[in-house]
């Protein structure tokens, strides 16, 4: 019996995967546990192992193709075995192989009024027209072309009210005069854009551009951050922190660290530690708004996510129990996570479960900025650069080292005073860093 290899769910948030690279050829013998391909998910590029012995009979999708979880990737079996049954089984689903099907469907559509787009489930994952049974029937009865409608239901499902809205507009006169099919062709077909276009230069009137395939990571960033920014009522609190003590403290610390063969501590590590200790004292900042559950969660553990820029995106690996870790350990873990993030080696457990996040653009000379909250966190701290500026101390202008941080707060959980008190605690630790060791 030939065996289907399906797209596995490799992370909690993954919805589809892109086949990044094939590592085995068709016709090659495979043993259970072999890595046959690499798959790019929304978070990382991961190895695709198979669980059976056999010959790789067919690579169903090409490099760069996306399939949803459960979609067909490859077929294993005995040499020469018939695989048409498996291919047929998956044909209707998300993973139909030939992108060529799409234009054909567009040409056929005007002929058979409303049902045509549905009958031809075209190439890429989401091009099937999703409509409720009632919406389909209404559309068929009234000659409304479903392919031209935007669905207002979940995942773009076209529901009764969408068809009714379309009927109320364009097709009302059609019922009176001409038979239904006449209504269809005219407004119908603006060809759907090919989302999965390859990165090739395109010429349009007025200029050229490169069309870059939207990666899984960019899709996830887009979805999560848009959701956060548009649903969490953000407000921002900025504090200017005197870092002169911290600079001296770090100097001393790193002398000792170096002498003892320990990881050197960065300013970012000091901020992580200060935040972690502050979160312990301010449980409402270490919290999550859980809309579906109807509750606010005050987390018992302090897990700080740190935004790490990587090629074509960013990830947020998590330092677990950051409040209970020493500075040198924090430093070593942060270094290791960032390194693995850049090499795309993070595993789901490395980026899940944060209760708070930080983002640091100080190394780019950014004085201050605001960050978008990383859901389901209630807050994120945006860290700017340490600036040499004149400050007034005891009535005298002296050289100072100042750092601006901006806390983005989800007002559903954190009020102004709550956020301000947390920032005051963080500032207290950074301005007198020895207190972090107490």
């Amino acid at each position, binding site marked *: 019996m030939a065996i289907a290899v399906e797209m596995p769910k490799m992370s909690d948030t993954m919805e589809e995967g892109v086949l990044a690279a094939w590592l085995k050829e068709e016709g090659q013998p495979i043993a259970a546990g072999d890595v046959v391909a690499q798959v790019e998910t929304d978070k990382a590029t991961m190895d695709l192992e198979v669980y059976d012995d056999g010959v790789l009979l067919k690579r169903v999708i090409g490099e760069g193709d996306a399939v949803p979880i459960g979609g067909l990737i490859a077929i294993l079996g005995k040499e020469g075995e018939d695989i048409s049954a498996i291919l047929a089984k998956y044909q209707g689903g998300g993973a139909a192989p030939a992108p060529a099907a799409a234009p054909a469907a567009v040409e056929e559509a005007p002929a058979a009024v409303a049902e045509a787009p549905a009958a031809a489930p075209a190439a890429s994952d989401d091009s099937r027209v999703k409509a409720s049974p009632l919406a389909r029937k209404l559309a068929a009865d009234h000659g409304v072309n479903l392919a031209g409608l935007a669905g207002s239901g979940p995942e773009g499902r076209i*529901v009764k009210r969408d068809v009714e809205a379309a009927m109320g507009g364009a097709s009302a006169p059609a019922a009176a005069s001409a038979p239904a099919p006449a209504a269809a062709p005219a407004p119908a077909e603006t060809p759907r854009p090919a989302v999965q276009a390859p990165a090739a230069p395109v010429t349009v009137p007025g200029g050229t551009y490169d069309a870059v395939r939207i990666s899984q990571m960019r899709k996830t960033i887009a979805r999560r951050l848009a959701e956060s920014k548009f649903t969490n009522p953000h407000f921002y609190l900025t504090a200017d922190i005197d870092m002169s003590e911290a600079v001296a403290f770090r100097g001393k610390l790193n002398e000792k660290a170096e002498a003892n063969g320990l990881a050197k501590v960065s300013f970012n590590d000091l901020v992580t530690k200060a935040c972690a200790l502050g979160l312990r004292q301010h449980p409402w900042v270490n919290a999550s708004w859980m809309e579906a559950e109807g509750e606010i969660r005050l987390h018992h553990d302090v897990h700080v996510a740190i935004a790490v820029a990587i090629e074509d995106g960013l990830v947020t690996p998590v330092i677990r129990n950051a409040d209970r870790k020493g500075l040198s350990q924090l430093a070593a873990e942060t270094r290791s996570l960032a390194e693995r993030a850049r090499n795309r080696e993070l595993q789901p457990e490395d980026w899940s479960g944060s209760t708070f996040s930080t983002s640091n653009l100080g190394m780019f000379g950014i004085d201050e900025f605001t960050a978008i909250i990383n859901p389901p966190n209630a807050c994120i701290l945006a860290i700017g650069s340490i600036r040499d500026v004149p400050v007034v101390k005891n009535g005298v202008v002296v050289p100072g080292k100042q750092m601006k941080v901006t806390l983005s707060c989800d007002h559903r959980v954190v009020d102004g005073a709550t956020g301000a008190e947390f920032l005051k605690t963080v500032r207290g630790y950074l301005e007198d860093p020895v207190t972090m060791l107490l």
Partner: protein
Amino acid sequence: MAILQFREALRAAMTEEMLRDDRVFLMGEEVAEYNGAYKVSEGMLEQFGPKRIIDTPISENGFCGLGVGAAMSGLRPIIEFMTFNFSFVAIDQIINNAAKIRYMSGGQFSVPIVFRGANGAAGQLAATHNTSTESIYSTIPGLIVIAPSNPDDAKGLLKSAIRNDNPVIFLESEVMFGMKGEVSDEPDYLIPIGKARIAKEGTDVTIVAHSKSYHIAMRVAERLDAQGYSAEVIDPRTIRPLDIDTIVESIKKTNRCVIIDESNPYASISSEITFQIQDRAFDYLDAPIKRITAKDVPAPYAKNLIEYYMPQEEDAYRACLSVMYAK
């Protein structure tokens, strides 16, 4: 119209039928001397004497078999289970004898028997005393299953059940016995078996719910009304045969359906209703059918857990909003 408790409505139905037909008798644990574990049969021993109101030992398999034999021999027994959880020790008599003898004898015998008593969860009674049995019994061809939600239906349907020539599973509830409601005092008040009741008319979503869940449905419908939505509530009353026509007609109007059912969800009443709706009204559905059921675990004992285990009004309310694509 008299205001009666649920238990009084049941008693009125049994009393009237026993006065009308001397072949009817009541048998079960504590039904006679103790006046019924839940006082459903209070005073009936005094009125009808020990030949027709019969206390049994704790021996469900025995007295159910006795009831089936009596029914085959021309009597019309009412068998009371203290709770339907105890019917499981007599399930062979119910499923293999009561339900099948008419079929297997080619119609030579009929089994006019009513098995009645408390069904479903009733608070902190733990896993073995909290089972909803309607999906178990309604899967058996040959059984009629009735689960009324109010005293009036209880009376009218129990009288019809006693007069029916087939075995009837009549499901009541510990927590509803004290519930009061208007009950018809027509002398021959019979509600037809297999006929649903449209408890509230509406246009935007159909809520189907029987027995205790019906009361959740009515509260949800009220909340929806307050929000400007119009919910239709249907109480099937009879689980088998199911009045699917009334449900389908409603869905043709509302295009959406939420089922509240305190059975465990797997292969339950809600599964069956959902199947029948999609089979008969597919083209009228504007949203997937949703159901709110007990959780898919044995009923827990702890107070907070048994409350969580049961169908939640809030979940039902949200399910209604979601099938209307509201919010």
